[in-house]
């Protein structure tokens, strides 16, 4: 047994797990109105199986070619415009 084996018997120090912490809040002040985008108030659309940006654009704007508007508004969520996932909440500007 070498001198470097001395601490091997100690269990590793584990960090506390805060993943199940719940939070909340409220205020006596009125809630501020939600920020609007320059195109319009817009709405949120939850992606379902089989959706694509052009299908959503067709449904929301009546024009599949407007898929880029949705993509631009959701660049923080979408890495590849050909790849969206069921359950994603997408902003649909001006819809």
């Amino acid at each position, binding site marked *: 047994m070498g001198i470097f084996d001395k601490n091997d018997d100690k269990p590793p120090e584990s960090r506390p797990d*805060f993943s199940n912490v719940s939070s909340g809040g409220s205020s006596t002040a009125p809630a501020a109105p939600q920020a609007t985008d320059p195109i319009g108030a817009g709405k949120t659309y939850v992606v379902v199986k089989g959706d694509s940006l052009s299908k959503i654009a067709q449904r929301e704007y009546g024009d599949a070619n407007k898929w880029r508007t949705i993509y631009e508004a959701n660049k923080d969520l979408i890495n590849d415009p050909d790849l969206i996932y069921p359950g994603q909440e997408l902003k649909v500007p001006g819809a």
Partner: protein
Amino acid sequence: MHTRLFGTSLLALTLAAVLSAACTKSSENPGATGTSGTSAGVRVSHIDMGRSLTADKTINDKTDSFKPNDTIYASVLTEGTAATATLKARWTYQDGQAVKESTQTIAPTRDARTEFHISKPDGWPTGKYTLEVFLNDSSAATKDFEVQR
């Protein structure tokens, strides 16, 4: 002569550096209930902590020492008005680990109290924690508290 003058100057410089560091430290951490950040027409003036709230969002039983099964409340007093102001509460554990972060966007028309609370079903690890409150993404106040058995 030169040596003595050099020694005196060095002492003065060291003293100035220490004083400067002390002043910087105190402005970085305005303290538990101290005056703090201002943003537009609103500022965070006070944070209280405790285990329960009244209807007007003030703390019933102020404390900065909690038990593992407590729900921890923080009541943030803001002064002034704004069309919109974002308050963010960032709770961290003593090792720097993020505990929780939550945000409220308010439109205060007068002094207002905004409360944040956190709970953990399996109990809080004992130790020291910090709550940092941000007003419009600028750090506005901090408050330290601890959880003890």
